[in-house]
């Protein structure tokens, strides 16, 4: 028997697969398609203090092996989520990770404090990296001092472990990761989307009403893998990896890069059954790679390397 279990702060995962925030709503639609109990966890859509309509449409555009989105954090607001969305998910055992967003530190604090007290919320994901809102969002995610400050404040008020979601739109991802680790983050989730744009050449207008949007999907996978590879060697908190995962092989690549678990975003649009499919396929991959515990794969790319580097040194003695 292959063991898919993963233990992370606040999260007892029966497998390392969860849908990524914003790509799964609050679970209702997918609950009609398969049993959500199959999932390792569920990352729900960003919750802000007040309800938001989000950006004008079009909100999505296709790119080569990727897509742009600028939803603009549409959500029913803290109250709506607490009253209508989280209770619906109570009938499932999969732990919920609540994605928290805001325009001010105070917003983040209130949402974090309240939502972390919900029965079925086992961890928070601090969204300091949304590229699609005018205020807050990405500013928090590109400045290590601001990110650390926010993390510290949120940690104080949260009743559950706090994962900070990193933006890839930075020059030095290790600096960002280390800053929030020092500020008390229990884990990292990475990466959010790259900022991108497409112009319709017929109209000479950006396709997306918000003009720029967040680039996700297979196109960004190499950036995600690189960042996770670098960060996982520099921090001691776990990483939930994401960015272009489409199948079980991609999951293995993320684990080997250094992620302890993964989230699947855009792929849910291509195939809404992708998460259970991946979960079913993982044991086969473990078999091929000759491991019994999925956690053995975590960081294998750089662990191998160190072994290789170390041996000549040892033999010098």
């Amino acid at each position, binding site marked *: 028997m292959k063991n898919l279990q993963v233990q992370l702060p606040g999260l007892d995962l029966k497998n390392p697969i969860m849908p990524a925030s*914003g790509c799964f709503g609050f679970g209702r639609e*997918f609950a009609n398609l398969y049993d959500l109990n199959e999932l390792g966890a569920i990352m729900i859509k960003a919750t802000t203090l007040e309800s938001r309509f989000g950006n004008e*449409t079009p*909100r999505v555009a296709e790119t080569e092996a990727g897509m742009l989105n600028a939803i603009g954090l*549409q959500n029913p607001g803290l109250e709506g989520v607490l009253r209508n969305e989280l209770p619906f998910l109570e009938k499932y055992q999969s732990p919920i990770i609540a994605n928290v967003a805001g325009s001010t530190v105070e917003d983040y604090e209130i949402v974090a404090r309240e939502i972390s007290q919900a029965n079925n919320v086992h961890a928070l994901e601090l969204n300091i990296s949304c590229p699609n809102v005018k205020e807050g969002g990405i500013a928090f995610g590109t400045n290590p001092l601001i990110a650390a400050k926010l993390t510290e404040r949120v940690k104080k008020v949260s009743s559950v472990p706090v994962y900070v979601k990193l933006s890839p739109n930075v020059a030095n991802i290790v600096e960002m990761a280390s800053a929030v680790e020092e500020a008390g983050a229990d884990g990292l989730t990475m990466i959010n989307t790259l900022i991108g744009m497409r112009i319709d050449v017929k109209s000479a207008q950006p396709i997306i009403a918000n003009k720029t949007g967040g680039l996700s999907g*297979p196109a960004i996978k190499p950036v995600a893998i690189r960042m996770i590879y670098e960060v996982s060697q520099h921090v001691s908190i776990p990483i939930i990896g994401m960015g272009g995962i489409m199948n079980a092989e991609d999951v293995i690549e993320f684990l080997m890069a250094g992620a302890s678990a993964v989230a699947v975003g855009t792929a849910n649009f291509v*195939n809404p059954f992708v998460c259970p499919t991946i979960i079913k396929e993982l044991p086969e991959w473990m078999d091929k790679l000759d491991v019994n515990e999925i956690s053995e794969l975590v960081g294998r790319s750089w662990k191998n390397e160190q072994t290789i580097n170390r041996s000549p040194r040892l033999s010098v003695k």
Partner: protein
Amino acid sequence: MIKKEWMEVQSISKIAKQIYEIELQGDLVKEIKAPGQFVHVKVGNGFSPLLRRPISICDFDQEASTMKLLFRSEGKGTKLLSEVKKGSKIDVLGPLGNGFSLETLNEGDTALIVGGGIGVPPLYGLARRLVERGVNVVVVLGFATEEVVFYEDKFKELGDTIVTTVDGTYGEKGFVTDGIRKNDWHYDAIFACGPTQMLKALTSKYPDERGYLSLEERMGCGIGACFACVCRAEEGYRKVCSDGPVFPIGEVIL
């Protein structure tokens, strides 16, 4: 129930410039509830094009488990779709969304059906079912130009049908609204699908009508989870993919 199924291509043919008719067979058809629902089609293998393409169900036969889609080969995805071969299988997700409500009208009532361009297809399945219920249909189909006119004959079998073309190369010159104005039809409800401009013109000229509009919006998931396809409603918002694509006139703001 929404299914994801590899449906078999029974036939594919070009019926007008850039316009293709494809017939698919599979169990998914059994799940269709009403004309106006759509499917989300994945074309090509691999991740480019990445997203599914929303295509309306034009007509369906639940006994034979077949359905027809009509589409315009325009961008990358629909171009690839136009190249699929009879006998091959394509990845279809559906049926999605809510279709037209047939119950609005009773036997003997008259429906005005208004279709614009590639908005015409779902109206055919609708018209057929209305006629089956004993509802009379009168039809206005608007196209850009003669070369892209399709399904006129099929609609004529069901009721009075006029065609308008913007450039006047076929039928009456002008927009569908011109076509409606010229004919002094009596009708009990409007059913329309087409470009937003057309739907706007229609509802501003006939603001007090009962009826249904089918909307288009760029989509991500197609099932209501991603909030890509929202439109503002008189109250709050609606998701075109799961609350629509068919809405009662007046429910959403165009």
